[in-house]
């Protein structure tokens, strides 16, 4: 088989259907060879369009797609050496598992014996050997996904494109198949580009998470970076796990002082080197929900440099390993603390209790 690395470079990639609105709007991105990359965003954000353009099922209006150093504009999917796994798998209903998997070899004119031999190897890899003679209608969702994966992988692509591959499965199977995808990706050692609107799926799987909104990339980076250090309010809210507050800058010094809302206490933020803020600016800041500590209002003041916001408990949800406590800290916005289960039940709160939501200065981050 031809050699070729599966690194992808998107340069100024744009797509418009009506000439007015850009579904994909000047996207620049580099995906290294052998990476697991997840495009994450709500429906209609252009993530599937990007995938289809990489696959060669749609042509970009502007910009370039370079795979393995080769501009693939105008090339057929097979020439690009990409393969796609469709959202509902698109298995051919009239062909058995074996014939579905061998389809790509059949259209290349391989003899029946040759292509069945290759299909047999592939079926072993994805543990489908026993189901070789079944038709897609007689397979479960997870089995169908494995067939789709094997059918795409048999073309020996350098890039595998997955369009919401887990959305057709039920919750339990989704977690299971998620691991299977990751395992296959390691085994095949090729680049996976996966489109999803589920943030859990993205951060669990991806080496690189690309968060999108309205055809533009909001943030791209390792899953942990994007989750722990969201660049702006959109990313923070979409990935979840963060409380987002806004306020007016009151004082800029060693740290930064913000008055969150009238009659709230001061919030101190340690400033990054690149952050540029001036007194009077309105800024957003994020604090991880699991960085919040709750103390009773009569337990004495917070430690030096820490922020303490008086809040009332509005709801409590038991989540197993932690307890989700919802507070009215910020008017009209969600403010949630994730308290480890043991900590919570040492001194449980009730709905209506008045507390202080505290975090130390280094925990809050300024958003763009």
């Amino acid at each position, binding site marked *: 088989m031809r050699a070729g690395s599966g690194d992808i470079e998107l340069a100024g990639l744009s797509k418009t259907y009506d000439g007015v609105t850009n579904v994909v709007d000047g996207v620049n991105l580099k995906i290294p060879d052998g990476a697991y990359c997840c495009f994450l965003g709500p429906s209609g954000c252009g993530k599937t369009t990007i995938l289809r353009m990489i*696959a060669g*099922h749609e042509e970009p209006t502007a910009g370039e797609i370079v795979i393995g150093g080769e501009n693939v504009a105008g090339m*057929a*999917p*097979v020439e690009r050496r990409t*393969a*796609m796994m*469709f959202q*509902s798998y*698109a298995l*051919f*209903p*009239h*062909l058995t598992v074996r014939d579905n998997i061998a*389809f*790509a070899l*059949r*259209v*290349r004119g391989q003899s029946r014996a040759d292509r069945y031999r290759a299909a047999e190897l592939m079926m072993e890899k994805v543990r489908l050997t026993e189901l070789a003679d*079944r*038709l897609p*209608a*007689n*397979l*479960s*969702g997870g089995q169908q996904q494995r067939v789709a994966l094997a*059918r*795409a992988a048999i*073309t020996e692509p350098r890039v595998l494109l997955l369009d919401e591959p887990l959305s057709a499965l039920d919750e339990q199977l989704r977690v299971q198949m998620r691991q299977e995808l990751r395992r296959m990706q390691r085994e095949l050692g090729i680049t996976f580009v996966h489109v999803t609107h589920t943030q859990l799926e993205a951060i669990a799987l991806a080496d690189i998470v690309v968060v999108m909104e309205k055809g533009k990339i909001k943030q791209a980076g390792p899953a942990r970076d994007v989750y722990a250090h969201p660049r702006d309010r959109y990313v923070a809210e979409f990935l979840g796990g963060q409380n987002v507050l806004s306020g007016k800058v009151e004082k800029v010094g060693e740290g930064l002082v913000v008055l969150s809302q009238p009659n709230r206490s001061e919030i101190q933020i340690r400033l990054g080197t690149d952050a540029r803020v001036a007194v009077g600016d309105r800024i957003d800041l994020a604090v991880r929900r699991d960085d919040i500590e709750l103390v009773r209002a009569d337990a004495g003041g917070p430690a030096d440099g820490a922020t303490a916001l008086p809040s009332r408990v509005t709801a409590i949800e038991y989540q197993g390993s932690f307890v989700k406590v919802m507070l009215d800290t910020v008017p009209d916005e969600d403010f949630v603390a994730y308290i480890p289960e043991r900590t919570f039940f040492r001194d449980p709160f009730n709905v209506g209790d008045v507390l202080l939501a505290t975090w130390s200065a280094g925990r809050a981050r300024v958003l763009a």
Partner: protein
Amino acid sequence: MTVVLGETDMPMIRTRRIPAVTRADRRPWTFYALATVFILYVVALYGPMICIYILSFQDIRGGLVFPMKGRSLHWFIDLFTQVRTGDVKGSFDRSIKLAVLVTVVTLVVSLMAGLAFRRRFFGDSVVFYLMIGSLVAPGLVLGLGTGLLFQWVGISPTWYTSALGAQLSWTLPFGVLVMFAVMSRFDSVWEEAARDLGATRWQTIRLVVIPVLAPGLVAVALFGFTLSYDEFARTLQTAGSLNTLPLEIWSMTLNVTSPSLYALGTVTTIVSFIIIGACIGAIIAINKRRGVRATGH
């Protein structure tokens, strides 16, 4: 004529099974009222034909009306041996050949139209309504016009030219409408997947589109065949000097006054049933192979 096809060829497109009726302890009186209506309907529908089948099995003394006189296959033998009863064998032959021709053309054109009409194109609604127009045009007039046109152009009308054309004006719109229904369940993502796996356009049609649509294509073929085999109005003025079977039967009703006419009715019905049975069998076989009714494991 041959058989009431309209009643028999629709249900076979369905693959769903009606769930078994849960037996109620007491049925309401409306059940018996509606059941009576239905039985009367079935009797009215099939009774006349059954009369003809029964009367065709009389012996040599047989007449055209009840009571039944003896039992034999005399009139069937008479049908195929006696010249005075008309050119049954020749017309049957022509009808089958014509029906096969019509079926092939209907199938190919309907498939292509079904694929084409998935997208909007310039003049698509005009094409569609022109097609429906030929469906509602009175058959006799249309046949007459076709015959006249052929004569004017200078081609003598025959069953395989003008009659073929006239019949297609009837079977094609039907075929295309059935094809629309069939295509509504076809997901174009299969074509995209085939392309993604390196199939050419022709390979996609041959290896994916046609096999996936196969049950629907059998249905279209059945429509084409039975509509043609049974066609009278459009063929009357376009068949030229040699009759098709329906024309032959019609001319026989004018001059043959023996139960061999009924025997012919029985034979043509049997042929129809064999063809319908074969098609339904094919569809069931295809669906069974695909495990349509089987559930996932």
